[in-house]
């Protein structure tokens, strides 16, 4: 029996070696995060005086409380909320818009349908940074600086997601649309009652990716939010670094970093379960 398993399972020294490699790799990646966590639980003096502590201190609650309620420029709780609104807004907006545009491209015959598809596809090749100056101009003229609309709207269309949904819709059998037509469902009814529930797993997968994309936005919030109350957390960390002669409040900065990591991790862990369940009971 052992010989048969030998094909898939490494035994003895090989097994240990593989695990050792994995453990070293994980330790290597995890170490900086650990250091950040340790730094967020000790006092300022412990950090600046070498050697740096490697075990957590006793200031966990006071440092995190300080970060959440007052922070450096703005309370971290405010920045977390801003980031959350922005990330959720961007991901839900992107999903809604790309679902609808993919629906239009796949199920409706309108003039220049292919042209529109390729135009959408072309925008894949333009990153935010390339169009950032004109976008800024537009948003400023609309008076959307320092607002949630300003944070969300310019990032809300997604060619990637449109393309993904288009590919998925094309695998849905035509007979389903025809059966719905015979049943008397109009186009939007078909969309909401049949296409949308069938796209659940794709939506879940995309939500994870888009949420992290939205959460990690740095340049755009940095440009359009000048009011600390509107800062998002990822750019907010940068704003916490002192300019000039001030000293950096490292424990609070590190606590903020750790806090900034929590929501994306929760989203990945939470949605992964749904995502995998969706993959297992495939329904086509």
């Amino acid at each position: 029996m052992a010989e048969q398993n030998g094909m898939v399972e490494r035994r003895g020294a090989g097994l240990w070696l593989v695990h050792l490699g994995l453990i070293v790799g994980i330790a290597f990646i995890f170490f900086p995060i650990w250091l950040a966590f340790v730094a967020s639980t000790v006092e300022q003096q412990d950090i600046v005086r070498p050697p740096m502590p490697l075990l957590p201190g006793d200031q966990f609650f006071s440092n995190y409380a300080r970060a959440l309620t007052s922070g450096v420029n703005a309370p971290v709780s405010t920045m977390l909320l801003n980031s959350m609104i922005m990330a959720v807004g961007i991901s839900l907006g992107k999903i809604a818009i790309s679902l609808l545009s993919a629906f239009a491209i796949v199920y409706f015959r309108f003039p220049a349908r292919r042209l529109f598809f390729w135009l959408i596809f072309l925008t894949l090749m333009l990153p935010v940074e390339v169009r950032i100056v004109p976008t800024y101009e537009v948003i400023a003229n609309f008076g959307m600086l320092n607002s949630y609309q300003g944070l969300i709207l310019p990032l809300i269309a997604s060619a990637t997601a449109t393309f993904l949904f288009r590919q998925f819709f094309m695998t849905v059998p035509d007979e389903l649309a025809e059966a719905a037509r015979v049943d008397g469902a109009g186009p939007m009814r078909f969309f909401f009652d049949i296409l949308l529930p069938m796209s659940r797993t794709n939506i879940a997968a995309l939500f994870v990716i888009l949420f992290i994309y939205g959460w990690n936005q740095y340049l755009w919030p940095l440009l359009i939010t000048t009011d600390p109350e509107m800062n998002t957390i990822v750019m907010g960390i940068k704003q916490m670094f002192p300019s000039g002669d001030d000293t950096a409040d490292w424990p609070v900065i590190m606590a903020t970093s750790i806090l900034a990591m929590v929501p994306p991790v929760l989203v990945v862990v939470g949605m992964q379960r749904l995502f995998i369940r969706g993959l297992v009971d495939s329904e086509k």
Partner: protein
Amino acid sequence: MATLTLNNVKKSFGKTDVIHGISINVADGEFIVIVGPSGCGKSTLLRMVAGLETTTSGDIQIDGRRVNDQEPMDRDIAMVFQNYALYPHMSVFDNMAYGLKIARTPRAEIEERVAHAAKLLQLETYLQRKPRELSGGQRQRVAMGRAIVRKPSVFLFDEPLSNLDAKLRVQMRLEIKALQRELGVTALYVTHDQVEAMTMADRMVVMNGGIADQIGEPLEVYANPATEFVAGFIGSPPTNFLSAEILGQSGDAKIGVRPEHTRLSDSGSLKARAAYSEALGAETLVHLKCADGTQFTVRQDAASMIPQEGTEVGLDWDPANEMRFDSSGRRC
């Protein structure tokens, strides 16, 4: 319950004509089977009646109403698709109830109608299951149930049995026919399987290249095929065709004789060499080759003599069973 009338119905895709004018009057409660090889336009014709394809010219009337420009749901039809087209994320109940929900039927009535259909189709214990948890035959029944609950004037079936295995196909064939009788609904049924056509149809339409070659009762079509194509398509194994020449007659006509009407006998006028035979148990199909290379099949009872491969035998038949076709394939 309704009549269905097609009046010189035509369909073109761009410049390609796929249906060249078909007319038929379907009586109330009649079961019409449209049969033909793939690409003959039979599915397109059905989809035109359903309203899933536009009609290029001609009229389609259901119960005397012209429905050419109506949406499928307004035509009072129900359709069963080849791959069933069940909504994968909905339970069997919801699949059947979906059309009624859209039509804003009261909840109590929906439940009653679905329960009735489920009872007819023996699906009562499966109502809360998802389609993927059902077998092929059960999915087929759900698709039928979805059609039944709408109480349509006309049932449309698009090769509904072609995804089932042979045994189930025979069983469902009987069930569909019995159900249609019981409900008394006019039905249009498309298939490429001539056995389904023969067994289910009140009348059948044999289509060939966008034309209805013959419309008639199955046995009538079998006994009196209007064209060479119909004679070759209906009946299994197919009709044997011989040139007039080989029978010592003049003209360029073709003579058709069915395998079951032919006898092997030494006195037969036509000589042929046995090529190979297929024993099916109850009967044996003997394939022969005539002097001019024409293939000829004879159906022999299991008890009869089966010639050895390579031996020459005579073929004989009652002249009354001869079918004569002119050079254009028409009966003459």
